[in-house]
């Protein structure tokens, strides 16, 4: 476990929890990123400005990290372009079909003791583990 970074993981998790709390306390909103993004693509009347502001905030947060630490956040995306497209399509389609992603189900839904969010979180973590297991530890190769 040489890549384990417990201190930064906890610090980052606390910030994420604080962010989700502010959105609910101040605005009454659940911060599910996939839902917020989808709502900017298919807007309903009077339901859009907060979404763009939250997404703008994500970029501001990334920028703030670079300013505070003096370096860009690490980024190693090793999937080929073809597999990156497949992954993006699955993540976009799957999060809409499943009504949420890591933030909405994993952080906010579980905090509300939602059965649906418990089930979804367990499912996507297990599916992710199986996928990585197949791609990394079997001879099956998907070359796109």
């Amino acid at each position: 476990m040489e890549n384990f970074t417990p201190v930064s993981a906890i610090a980052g998790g606390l910030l994420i929890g604080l962010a989700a709390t502010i959105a609910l306390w101040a605005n009454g909103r659940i911060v599910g990123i996939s839902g917020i993004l989808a709502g900017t693509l298919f807007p309903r009347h009077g339901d859009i400005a907060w979404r763009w502001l939250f997404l703008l905030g994500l970029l501001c947060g990334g920028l703030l990290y670079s300013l505070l630490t003096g370096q860009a956040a690490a980024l190693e995306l090793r999937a080929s372009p073809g597999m990156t497209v497949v992954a993006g399509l699955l993540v976009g389609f799957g999060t809409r079909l499943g009504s949420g992603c890591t933030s909405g189900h994993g952080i906010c839904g579980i905090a509300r003791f939602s059965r649906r969010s418990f089930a979804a979180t367990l499912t996507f973590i297990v599916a992710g583990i199986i996928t990585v297991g197949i791609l990394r530890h079997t001879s099956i190769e998907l070359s796109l």
Partner: protein
Amino acid sequence: MSKPLIQSRLSILVAGSLFGLGLAVSGMTNPAKVIGFLDIAGDWDPSLILVMAAGLAVTVPAFHLVLRRSRPLFAHHFFLPERQDLDARLITGAALFGIGWGVAGFCPGPALTALLSLNGSVMLFVAAMVAGMLLHHLLLE
């Protein structure tokens, strides 16, 4: 703009910024780190579990307190999902998402935050993710 509207918009911008900062601090904007968590048969990196646990350590008690209020500070009511039933769409969708997550190591929040890098692969992922959402909208809504 009225004062509550400005307060509401500022607070959501602050929430987004703290969320993005948290993702970057935790290392979750790096797909290799997420894959390190999903790779339990390899050199396992449990960091993601601590990110979720720390997030929940805040949201579980805080949401409980906040939801005892009759309304949020700057809105007329809370916007909460109400469904409780487990159905095939939920599980199928979560499974498809999990597969995509395992392939690239990106989920929506980190991918959007990482757009800041102007990295071509990140842009490709986000474009495909938006296309996947459009596809769902066209086919199933």
